[in-house]
């Protein structure tokens, strides 16, 4: 049975190499012996009937404005998929739109679809740099953050993890990202999945429970070396 990966708004939300996440899932699925079908979802399209994993990337403010109306249109569909346990990875701009609202620096409110109980406020200084986050289910995540939004979690919202280096959601409360069922929101680019194969495989296994985490270590020799470098990087 093929794995259907839906990548939402690939032409708008693609600024920081997040298409790498798609490439990693596709290739790792292949290594697990699973053929995948990529569905690019563009504003105005019918949402793909089969969606085993949903991915979204970060984009520029202008791009985020351009897709905002459309994401509200498909909000119910995305909520239903999350409730059904479909794994999702939403990075940066799409993470913000998966929240309840984004209040721009000028005070304008951009409504999100509220899968995560989070609110984001525009900041004046961008938070940029190498980051590391400790998570319960996926180990330490290494990535690169580049965002001006400050995201605050609602009281009951579970974060993705705890910041051990960098700024995370807002530079203050040490939380990074959000998780609701199997949907993950995060500010980590890099892109995220190449350096975090455990997270990549977890998304695949959540989508296809019959898969087991049995890839030979040789596949991840380079990723492990890259992670070792990230652990000790001084800047």
């Amino acid at each position, binding site marked *: 049975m093929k794995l259907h990966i839906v*990548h939402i708004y*690939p*032409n708008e939300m*693609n*600024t*920081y*190499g*997040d*298409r*790498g996440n798609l*490439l*990693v899932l596709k*290739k790792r699925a292949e290594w697990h012996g699973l053929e995948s079908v990529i569905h*690019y979802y*563009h504003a105005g*399209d019918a949402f793909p009937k089969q969606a085993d994993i949903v991915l979204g990337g970060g984009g*520029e*403010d*202008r791009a985020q404005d351009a897709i905002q109306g459309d994401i509200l249109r498909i909000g119910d569909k995305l909520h239903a998929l999350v409730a059904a346990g479909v794994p999702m990875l939403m990075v940066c701009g799409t993470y913000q739109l998966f929240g309840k609202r984004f209040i721009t620096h000028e005070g304008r409110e951009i409504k999100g679809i509220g899968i995560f109980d989070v609110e984001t406020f525009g900041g004046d200084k*961008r938070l*940029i*740099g*190498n980051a590391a986050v400790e998570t319960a289910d996926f180990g330490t995540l290494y990535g*690169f953050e*580049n965002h*001006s939004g400050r995201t605050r979690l609602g009281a009951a919202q579970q974060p993705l993890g705890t910041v051990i280096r960098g700024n995370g959601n807002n530079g203050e409360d040490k939380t990074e990202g959000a998780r609701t069922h199997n949907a993950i929101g995060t500010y980590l*680019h*890099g*892109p995220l999945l*190449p*350096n975090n194969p455990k997270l990549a495989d977890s998304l695949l296994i959540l989508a296809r429970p019959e898969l087991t985490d049995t890839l030979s270590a040789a596949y991840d020799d*380079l*990723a492990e*070396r*890259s992670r070792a*470098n990230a652990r000790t990087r001084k*800047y």
Partner: protein
Amino acid sequence: MRRTVGTLLGKSVAGAVRLRGKSGGQALPGLVVETLVPGYLGVMLRQLPQGVVIITGTNGKTTTTKMVVELLLAHGMRVLTNPTGSNLTRGIISSVSQQAKRGGRLPFDIAVFELDEAYARQFTDVVKPRFVLGLNASRDQLDRFGEVDVVARLVSETMLAATDGIIVNADDKRLSAAVSSADVPIAYFGVAPQLLTYFPRDDELVAVDGPEPTLEAADVPLGVELLAFEDDQATYRMAGQELKARLQVTGQHNFQNAAGALALVRAVLPDVDPTELLEALAAVQPAFGRGQEYTLLNGSKLQLNLVKNPASFRQGLASYVQKGTSLMIAINDRVADSRDMSWLWDIDFTSLAGRTVMLTTGSRAVDMALRLQYDDIPVGSVEPDIEKALTAFARLPGDKVIFASYTAMLRLHALLEKNAGKDL
């Protein structure tokens, strides 16, 4: 008064820096003069009878500047320019004070400066340029600029500061639209419609299926148009004539840059004979680390290519990877390279299918190899030490190409300049 004081100060600081044998001496004299003699750069450059010309944009600044300078020199002008790599205001102040006479006179007709997108905008507050050439705006150093729109805005604002004319890439719609209502003359350069597919704009670079990228031709009259290219030969339309030249600076992106250089030189020298311009263009050699070729001890050729961002890496892969060439990729992550490696994932390496990249090197050698792993391109070995990697690479038989990020290129350039013909 400021002219003399600033010049002497700049010269003495530069002298002291040289005496102490310090490297990186380009910025310090500029910093001292900038602090102690405010307004120095403005009064100095206002002496120039033909004023100041600025070249800016994400990719192609250094090569295009070299072309413009050499075309103007070939037509008898005395040209002041900034040394490669010091494209920030301080480097320019240093360069001006060192090239001025002790009394503060600048013995040049015109200044042609390559300026970084952010500094170009600041520079126009100090000196109003006569002409500005805007090459392109594309994703680059996003850990520094944040967004591509920011880069486009900076380049556009610099162009709009020109007093006598703007030269803009008609095929970069973000830039050409931003200046369309300027109140100075605009000279457009561009490529023929059938070539547009070789020059994707930033948004097209990463587009996937769905709506087709709009490859519509520019709807403005082109002053200089790249009509065709093959190997080292490029054909341009200019002043109603079709002209061919064999260039030593090759690569499709450089043929496009040359169209910008030609358009700028025609704005500065409106009466120049286009045929003579093309002859001078054919004589231009590649700039520092931008396609420079070295002959190694074993007789093979090695070409060093700077790659800064997805657009330039993509152009490099399309232009310089020939059948049988051995490849090495050198990626560092200092600020000038980009701390963030995400740019490597916006490049499609599948055009290398069937090859092995012989070595990856630099502080991000492992990350580069990891990127290639996901496009199924095997890597011979991962050697973060650039000097060791170059030694191993140079011993391979056959012709070679290196793609290198900025500071990796600087290191390789230094090693090759010193030892290319010897045992590396």
